[in-house]
């Protein structure tokens, strides 16, 4: 890839900011991985693929800070509040896809933080 100039960089940033859509993020820092985040990430990826939900992106991210509730999964589906699910395991991950992503209903007893989605 060619080296960026000042103009290239700002044009690139502008272009990247246009990207929108729903996503799921899994906290994959040392703390999250130690608590089982990799398995959760793989499960989510697999399930999303199985259900052919192409517009939904599953991503890894760093540590949000709520170490007591790892592994953490943040879910942002357009039109729904952005929420953090804590202490997620394989079963909860499957439920997130089934109920939250497909059924548009939030899960009981698993949410640790929520914000308005833009």
């Amino acid at each position, binding site marked *: 890839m060619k080296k960026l100039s000042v103009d290239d960089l700002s044009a690139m*940033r502008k272009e990247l900011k246009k990207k929108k859509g729903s996503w799921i993020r899994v906290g994959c820092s*040392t703390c999250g991985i130690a608590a089982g985040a990799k398995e959760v990430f793989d499960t989510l990826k697999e399930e999303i693929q199985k259900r052919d939900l192409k517009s939904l992106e599953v991503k890894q991210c760093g540590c949000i800070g709520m170490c007591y509730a790892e592994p953490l999964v943040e879910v942002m589906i357009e039109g729904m509040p952005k929420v953090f699910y804590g202490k997620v395991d394989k079963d909860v991950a499957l439920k997130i896809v089934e109920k939250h992503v497909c059924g548009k209903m939030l899960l009981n007893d698993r*949410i640790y933080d929520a914000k308005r989605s833009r």
Partner: protein
Amino acid sequence: MEKRVFIKDTNHVGKKERTRDFYTAFLAQLRERKLENDVQLIRVADIGAYNQGFVVHIYPDDFLYSNVEMQDIPRMIEESILGGKKIDDLVCHHISKQFRIVLRNCGVIDPRNIDEYIVHDGYQAIEKILSGYTPEKVLEELKTSGLRGRGGAGYPTWLKWQFTRNVPSDQKYVICNGDEGDPGAYMDRSVLEGDPHSVIEGMMIAGYVIGATKGYFYIRAEYPLAIERVKNAISQAYQYGLLGENILGTDFRFDLEIRLGAGAFVCGEETALIASIEGKRGYPRPRPPYPSVKGLWDKPTVINNVETLANIPVVILQGGAWFSNIGTGASKGTKVFALTGKVKNSGLVEVPMGTTLREIVYDIGGGSASQAKVKAIQTGGPSGGVIPEDFLDTPVSYESLQKLGSIMGSGGMIVMDANDCMVDIAKFYLRFCVDESCGKCTPCRVGGTQMLNLLERASEGTGKREDIEKLKKISLAMQRASLCGLGQTAPNPVLSTLRYFEDEYLAHIEEKKCPACRCGALFRYSIIQEKCKNCGLCAKNCPAGAILGDRESGYTLDQEKCTRCGRCFEVCRLGAIFRG
């Protein structure tokens, strides 16, 4: 679903019936109004408020209510859910005061993808600087911001940079100190793992200002994931031409490399760190000359902590004046703390300077994790001290913590409850420093060991009254005569526990008792036969096989075999285990 309502009982842990009744009543009232298909009611695990009764959060209006009673349900439905209006007398005021500058991207971006950093205003600060900021202008912004080193000492960052800039030299260096060694502290690791590019950008700006073309990350080898992510971030930055020659089409040049630390605590000290990068043994040397004059390979060098560097891009983008509005007195901006120990919600918190310790421990941390009361908090790791519960209303700043006999340090904050023994805590930190002492200077090498011997005597019940004076005397000698920060600050945990909890030391020495029942030689467990119902739970759980007997003939505790682990005390439901 148009609306979502989150509910949480923030007073009671484990009392599920209370939540169930409230949930059922709420749901019934929604059904009465035929709203069950428009409003989803959700029980949540955490809502960010503690000890404030039922807390209700309504989306998408973002109304947060606390101390809600059953009779408030109808008006919440009518006025807030249907009417979209806020009910003022229910509004929750005790909410988390977190404010994220350093952790702005942690948990938000994919640290392995440079594009995600760029999209979150990444490399915009260096872009701004290379489009027309002189190094003096950057220094001016930093000076206005009031940013001080986050590694612990709190030296003004702009001053450090200016000194280095003013020393003429053909080569200068920037070093990122990622040798985070305090027990229980992991702020830097999280930043390196979650947002490595922000630190790279901070180092680039430092390089531009002081006139350095080369930088080093010094990261401890115990952080393999942080190393992997920084390595990846550096190579992506090279690909984009953000590192190397002619950065962003200008003649600015900057190269970065990683050096691994082998985990010696003393290598967090700047002169020892430099020796370690040079391939020498990690020994500190006397200062001056400071690294800003004679640093890496005798060239002028700036060493900044990870957290300090992660602040830099934001200071440039938002401006120094914006940054200086956050914080208090001479401590500006925010501070990241690793909140651990006996606290309900352990984790990383970032708060504006000036937030009180109580707000951190109770409003964010949720208070004590057990039934026991919070007794004290420890800040600053082995170089810091304890702050008793009475002083928790102190606002956090470099100066206020120092006044209390502790230090800000790199940001470890360990909460202790009534079951923690202060002599034991002092012993733990002192042993850490004794283990990590490099042995170069006598006050640290010999003084630390002697102090540890005195503390061990106290916790074994053979301490003498004059030991307390001896501890104070050796502490003073170490503080004055040690070569580097490790030795100078090693007595701090002892001095601060002595300052606030001298009665506990006296109990150990004179009464031969450990009030918190932690020092094994000063208390014992036994079975209170009158209360014991011979259930055998203690015997089953004892890892040392020290509880003898069976369900017919009853149980006795063999003091010889007992390791004082306290397992029997925890599992007995009848209170039939005596401790003391």
